[in-house]
């Protein structure tokens, strides 16, 4: 069955290209049906890869190995520093090395269910299938995964999954996977197949004749605006969680590449699907620049609680008493109480929402009242301090460095924070956007996690897309267009796009107002968190929409920028990213307003059950919302890709 939605009005046709046939055979069959590029012809193609995180580095390396000419871009000073480096917990794969009942189908099923049935079956099954190849590949590269004494790979269970399928390298799995991909990339640089462009930011996409033709970049050191032409453009530019200002993302993570492609015609899928991670270090002061994640694995041993009453909580907030002064019977282990079968291991969205609720009731701890305890006392009593230290030593150390409290002695204080964006550019089964020749990989696309992502599956998706999907699907497009189908950078399409980029930068520099990009960003983040964060309602969203519009207007009349465009100018980089966040924010609000249901990370207060659980509306919302840009300050147009479930039955998620 092919999911096709025809749009009579605008002519955009959303075709998921999901292959027909039994679920488990779709990918194999599809691979066989894809056209191949003759080996001798591969060197005649130029591929632009924007981003060198897990998705971009693996794609660039794999395409270089095949013989394509690749240009790889990143805004950091080295590809090795992409935000993927910060992932801590691990990567899933359906290896079933533990003989505990895992399988490709189970990983597929968990991911679809965890995503609250808002992802495509075909994509998710493929992800589960190739997950096993990823681990093989990474081990062959020398990624030092954790091992048992006998030398076999070790696994842990993660994020509430019932099987142990997570591979990890201490608390630095993302680092080790990225360094593996970076080493493969470096090998292709040495082979002359990949050319690197670090400290270079993509600022526009060039489309001509209906196809993606290349990109416009700014050299962040010299400020020079440049054109790059290619046969295809791959956006591997990560997520947009920083629209909330405070998030666990790296400071530079941004939406600019995806957003500018969106403004050129690429549809944006499910923008409001945001993941709020339950275990982060709470906000401390107004100078706070980012939030630090404490790995989810801590919930395997830590117990989450707050005081039973508001009165006791107030004493904690005022600093009159401490956690240890609160008697056992005055503590509310609210996750264990509400979800007896999953307890502290409920999925992220559920854990986050419950933490918010108890804090909203006034039972939060810390001076701000915006924190809950994550307590290891029982685990230490049960297993000894040594065992806990071996498992979480580096995390405890990191916590102590930031908070200046010893988590072996006193419970950690945690609070939810923005962590991941499931939404992103709409792509078909081939990872191609609706713009021919434009692809989106990794967190930048919307594809595999539905309305909520399970722990340890973003790393899996990034590497699946880059190592094992795009090398096949890209060839099909290239073989169709042929090597001659490319335009030079002297083409007016490039010159016009360069001009637009230059004009936008000059415009920002000429405002000479009073408010820095940083201040606008903080203000936007506050609006998003307040009204489009963990819980949303129609009234609040409508208010947020107006506030964002006003803030955007103010940005373009009152921005304060120092320095010039022809030099390294971090403030200018930030302003240009904030300008895009100010547009994206409104679309997220529109999307959240449109979706009159609660699913995964999207919780609409109006759509909940009596005991406050999310209420999905499968009858009306089993679709991907793909938004089309219609011009500055114009409402975007909604396209729907209906999701068809041939294999799984939609059920209400329950972790009780």
């Amino acid at each position: 069955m092919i999911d096709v939605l025809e749009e009579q009005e605008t002519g955009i046709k959303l075709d998921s290209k999901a292959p027909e046939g039994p679920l488990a055979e779709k990918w194999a069959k599809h691979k066989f049906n894809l056209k191949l590029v003759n080996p001798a012809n591969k060197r005649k193609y130029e591929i632009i890869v924007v981003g060198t995180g897990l998705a971009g580095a693996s794609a660039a390396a794999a395409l270089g190995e095949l013989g394509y000419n690749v240009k790889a871009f990143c805004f950091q000073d080295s590809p090795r520093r992409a935000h993927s480096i910060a992932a801590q917990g691990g990567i899933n794969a359906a290896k079933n090395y533990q003989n505990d009942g895992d399988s490709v189908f189970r990983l597929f099923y968990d991911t679809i269910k965890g995503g609250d049935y808002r992802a495509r079956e075909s994509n998710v099954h493929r992800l589960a299938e190739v997950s096993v190849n990823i681990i093989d590949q990474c081990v062959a590269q020398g990624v030092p995964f954790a091992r048992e004494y006998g030398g076999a790979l070790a696994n842990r269970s993660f994020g509430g999954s019932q099987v142990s399928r997570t591979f990890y390298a201490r608390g630095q799995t993302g680092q080790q996977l990225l360094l593996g991909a970076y080493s493969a990339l470096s090998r292709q640089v040495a082979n002359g197949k990949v050319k690197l462009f670090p400290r270079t930011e993509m600022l526009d996409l060039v489309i001509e004749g209906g196809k993606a033709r290349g990109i416009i970049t700014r050299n962040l050191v010299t400020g020079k605006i440049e054109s790059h032409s290619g046969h295809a453009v791959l956006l591997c530019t990560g997520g947009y969680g920083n629209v909330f200002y405070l998030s666990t993302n790296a400071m530079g993570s941004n939406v600019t590449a995806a957003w500018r492609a969106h403004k050129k015609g690429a549809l944006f899928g499910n923008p409001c699907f945001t993941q709020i991670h339950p275990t982060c270090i709470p906000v401390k002061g107004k100078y706070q620049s980012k939030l630090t994640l404490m790995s989810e694995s801590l919930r395997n041993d830590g117990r989450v609680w707050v005081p039973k009453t508001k009165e006791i909580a107030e004493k904690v907030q005022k600093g009159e008493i401490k956690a240890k002064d609160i008697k056992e019977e005055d503590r509310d282990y609210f996750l264990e109480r509400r979800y007896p079968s999953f307890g502290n291991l409920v999925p992220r969205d559920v854990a986050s929402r419950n933490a918010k609720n108890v804090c909203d009731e006034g039972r939060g701890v810390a001076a701000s009242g915006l924190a809950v305890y994550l307590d290891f006392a029982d685990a230490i009593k049960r297993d000894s301090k040594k065992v806990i230290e071996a498992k979480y030593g580096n995390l405890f150390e990191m916590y102590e460095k930031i908070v200046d409290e010893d988590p072996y002695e006193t419970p950690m204080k945690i609070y939810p924070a923005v962590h991941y964006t499931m939404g992103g550019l709409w792509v078909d089964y081939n990872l191609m956007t609706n713009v021919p020749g434009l692809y989106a990989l990794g967190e930048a696309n919307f594809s595999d996690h539905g309305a909520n992502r399970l722990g340890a599956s973003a790393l899996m998706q990034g590497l699946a897309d880059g190592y094992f999907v795009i090398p096949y699907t890209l060839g099909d497009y290239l073989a169709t267009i042929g090597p001659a189908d490319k335009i030079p950078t002297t083409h007016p399409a490039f010159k016009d796009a360069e001009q637009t980029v230059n004009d936008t930068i000059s415009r920002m520099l000429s405002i000479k107002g009073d408010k820095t990009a940083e201040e606008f960003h903080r203000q936007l983040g506050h609006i998003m968190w307040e009204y489009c964060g963990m819980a949303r309602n129609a009234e609040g969203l409508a208010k947020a929409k107006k506030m964002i519009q006003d803030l955007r207007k103010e940005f373009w009349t009152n921005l304060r920028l120092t320095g010039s465009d022809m030099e390294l100018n971090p403030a200018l980089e930030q302003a240009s990213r904030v300008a895009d966040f100010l547009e994206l924010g409104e679309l997220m609000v529109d999307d959240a307003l449109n979706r009159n249901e609660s699913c995964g990370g999207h919780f609409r207060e109006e759509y909940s059950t009596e005991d406050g659980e999310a209420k999905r509306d499968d009858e009306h919302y089993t679709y991907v919302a793909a938004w089309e840009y219609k011009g500055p300050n114009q409402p975007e147009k909604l396209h729907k890709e209906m999701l068809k479930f041939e294999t799984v039955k939609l059920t209400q998620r329950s972790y009780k």
Partner: protein
Amino acid sequence: MNIALKVWRQKNSQTPGKMVDYKLSDVSPDMSFLEMFDVLNEELSHKGEEPVAFDHDCREGICGMCSMYINGRPHGPETGTTTCQLHMRSFNDGDTIVVEPWRARAFPVIKDLVVDREAFDRIIQAGGYVSVNTGSAPDANDILIPREIADEAMDAAQCIGCGACVAACKNASAMLFTAAKISQLAVLPQGHAEHQLRAERMVAQMDAEGFGACSFTGACSVECPKSISLDHIARLNREYLGAKLASNNA
């Protein structure tokens, strides 16, 4: 807290730089060092002066981007800590803090506290990988690797490529960085086939980039935020010597 800062300001690689004094009041001990710089930069912007350029991204000690030379020490006074993980509680009210970029011939200053570390990428490109193509790997558990070996590889692999080792070394040597990668791959069976060639090529590249010689003083390991051990340099030397002997005999 009140803090006085002396910060290296340099417009670009062609212009000579100088130390400039700034004063900050109301600094909270819970601020990170970089958040203190954020506050300074906001103040400068509002005064119409240009903010101080510095490298940073993850702000949790893993990307290796932050790189400030603080009071004569790379990443400041705490051991095992990157600049972004350093907090103002490590300083006292009224302190004067001197902040400079990494100083090394192979790391030219781009602007203020930002330096060019692409030499590190080129060292990795010279051989810091296992030559395996995507899709041709055997099952991951076909290669059993004893836990001690995996742990040893992981100890070396933790390097974040920040360059503090170079900044700490009086010869601006990149031995610790280079050794960490050579050592990680040399102890693993996957990397063993190419171990000699790798050592030879990476060391040659390191020399070509203009990093100094290693005189084994150990300053690098002390200042390394990931406490990468000097043992890796010893292993590199063995690998390199072995490679030289092998190629001389060939």
